[in-house]
């Protein structure tokens, strides 16, 4: 959302009311399920940041418990192992520094090495802080960088001498990015401030009066970035962009003006603007966003520009699912979701037609609908400001995933040529195995744990630090599956966490990417789970299914694998969940067609 679409005062007043309500609730003592624990440490006054963050997360359905550090108390909280900060044990730690924190500045014409030493000491201070936090709690850190102030002493020369304040802070910001630990996300506040303009960002009056780090006018805009990061940490990310065609990807209506008559000429302002929008979208695809087309058109007509207009930047091979027909867009978006095997809440819809946007908004509130402005030159900005694709990390698998979906279409055609499903599975020539989790696969493992919703038995979310502590605990076994077939290499697509509890082997986590359903991979995994249980000399394997709005597809999984349902209340996580047992000595042979590779 563009900054000026926020009414900062309105949000402030609503947030203050919500804060008051929370305070009252606390005194009445309320027990709420699964709060996200957030600790905020800042070098300036962070009370309003906290209040607005809590309010905006609440609006997103995320209930929070917040620890607010003392004013300018970052170091105090971090250095004292007994501090309230460590007792709080946050899931997310937000660190908001202020440029005035950096006290040792370069002197005019100071030697490079000597300036670098000063920079190093700032950077190692942060690296130490991250390490201290990591040593004492399992959390993710959102580290804001320094907003470089709009006041200089060198004027035009500020960017010409390495002893300048601006140059010094720029370098610090750059090094923060380079040195970040894997569970640290740098939030680029300097960039945020630049977007609204630094003369608007800083409110010097408010700084002197209340130690406000920046203007209240931009608080909701700034906080939204943190809200998006926290949503991403909780697995709420969007991965598919659904695009309209006419007047969205090109100017004009292709059915009327033909594939070569649409506005897409780089020598003409409007055409260039549409091309710039296509380029922006292509860049999204390159970073792993799946593209789909949803257009009211006859399919051959809609595809013609992609095939024949040489000014097109997007090609058919970039589009993982192409729907062009005369059905309503809501049905088509649902169809795309089914074809790609993704949840509709991971989709973003872009259309120039306000009526189409309204219908999608109304019938599919879970889809993020981007309002394109009238001016095509600002299409990119609208999509950018929607913050639709804020992920907490990108893995190599994300980048190549877009390919899988395109390959997936070929696979479907291939499937049509078999009448027996087992013949099909054999012909896929799958190769893969179940492996013990090792260092290099941790990022993808954590990512999958935090975003799988459908094939996910218990939907437990763990961060990287928690996974690491399980690896070093011999009561746990962490397994993953890698698979490839004759069409593509899927990489890491399934995660399992087993816990030894006395004579039982408990399946704490079992999930799988939806790209590889119905391949009997679960049979291979089950075989391995039994092997681990036998190694541990357990007599039973215990599985639990915790129903959510999305994981209906695995409600029968344990039964299909030969587990027996037990009527018990012991160890049930929720009232609706079901417990299953498989005796390790039971006779239970499951078939699959995956060639083992090491």
């Amino acid at each position, binding site marked *: 959302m563009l900054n000026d679409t926020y009414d900062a005062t309105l949000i*402030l*007043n609503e947030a*203050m*009311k919500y804060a008051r309500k929370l305070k009252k609730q606390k005194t009445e003592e309320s027990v709420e399920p699964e709060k996200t624990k957030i600790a905020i440490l800042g070098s300036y006054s962070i*009370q*309003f940041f906290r209040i607005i963050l809590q309010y905006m997360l609440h609006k997103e359905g995320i209930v929070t418990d917040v620890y607010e550090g003392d004013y300018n108390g970052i170091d105090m909280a971090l250095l004292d192992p007994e501090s309230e900060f460590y007792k709080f044990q946050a899931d997310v730690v937000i660190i908001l520094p202020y440029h005035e924190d950096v006290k040792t500045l370069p002197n005019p014409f100071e030697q490079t090495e000597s300036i670098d030493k000063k920079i190093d000491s700032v950077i190692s201070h942060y690296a130490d802080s991250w390490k201290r936090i990591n040593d004492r709690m399992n959390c993710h850190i959102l580290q804001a960088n320094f907003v470089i102030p709009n006041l200089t002493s060198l004027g035009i020369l500020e960017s010409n001498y390495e002893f300048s304040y601006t140059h010094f802070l720029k370098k610090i910001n750059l090094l923060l990015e380079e040195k970040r630990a894997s569970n640290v996300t740098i939030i680029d506040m300097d960039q945020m401030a630049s977007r609204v303009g630094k003369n608007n960002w800083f409110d010097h*009056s408010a700084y*002197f*009066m209340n130690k406000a780090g920046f203007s*209240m006018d931009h608080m909701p805009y700034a906080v939204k970035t943190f809200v998006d990061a926290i949503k991403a940490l909780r697995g709420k990310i969007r991965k598919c962009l659904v695009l309209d065609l006419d007047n969205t990807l090109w100017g004009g209506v292709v059915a009327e003006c033909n594939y070569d008559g649409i506005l897409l000429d780089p020598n003409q302002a409007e055409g260039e603007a549409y091309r710039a929008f296509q380029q922006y979208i292509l860049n999204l695809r390159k970073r792993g966003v799946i593209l789909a087309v949803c257009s009211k058109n006859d399919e051959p007509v809609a595809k013609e520009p992609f095939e024949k207009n040489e000014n097109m930047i997007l090609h058919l091979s970039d589009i993982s699912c192409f729907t062009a027909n005369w059905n309503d867009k809501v049905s088509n978006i649902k169809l795309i979701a089914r074809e790609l095997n993704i949840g509709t809440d991971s989709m973003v819809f872009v259309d120039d037609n306000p009526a189409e946007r309204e219908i999608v908004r109304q019938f599919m509130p879970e889809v993020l609908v981007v309002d394109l402005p009238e001016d095509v030159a600002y299409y990119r900005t609208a999509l950018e400001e929607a913050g639709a694709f804020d992920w907490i990390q990108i893995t190599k698998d994300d980048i190549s995933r877009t390919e899988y979906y395109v390959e997936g279409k070929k696979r479907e055609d291939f499937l049509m040529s078999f009448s027996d499903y087992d013949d099909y599975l054999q012909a896929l020539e799958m190769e893969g195995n179940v492996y013990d989790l090792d260092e290099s696969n941790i990022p993808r493992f954590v990512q999958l744990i935090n975003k799988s919703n459908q094939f996910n038995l218990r939907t437990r979310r763990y961060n990287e630090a928690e996974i690491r502590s399980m690896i070093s605990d011999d009561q746990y076994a962490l397994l993953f599956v890698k698979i490839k077939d004759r069409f593509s290499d899927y990489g890491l697509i399934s995660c399992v966490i087993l816990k030894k509890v006395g004579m039982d082997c408990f399946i704490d986590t079992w999930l799988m990417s939806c790209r590889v359903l119905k391949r009997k991979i679960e049979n291979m995994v089950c075989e391995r789970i039994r092997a681990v249980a036998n190694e541990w000399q357990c007599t039973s394997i215990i599985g639990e299914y915790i129903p959510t709005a999305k994981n209906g597809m695995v409600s029968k999984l344990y039964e299909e694998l030969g587990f027996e349902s037990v009527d018990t209340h012991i160890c049930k996580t929720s009232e609706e969940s079901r417990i299953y047992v498989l005796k390790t000595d039971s006779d239970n042979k499951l078939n699959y067609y995956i060639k083992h590779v090491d």
Partner: protein
Amino acid sequence: MSILEELQDIFRDIFDDEELVISEETSAADIDDWDSLVNIQLMVTICKHFDVRMTTQEISGFENVGDIVDCIKGKIG
């Protein structure tokens, strides 16, 4: 509506009290919830409502509602 009446509406909304009556003499000491945090909220909301900017000197000098009224009067004429 006079400036004082408009301020009263803002105060009622912010303190969530429809019965609240303020006068030029009302100060932070008279309203329980009027702490430094709410004071900032008040200033932001008042500036936005009357579309005025207040200087550091002006805000620091406010002793009661009357001072705020005078300041606004001086700005919107």
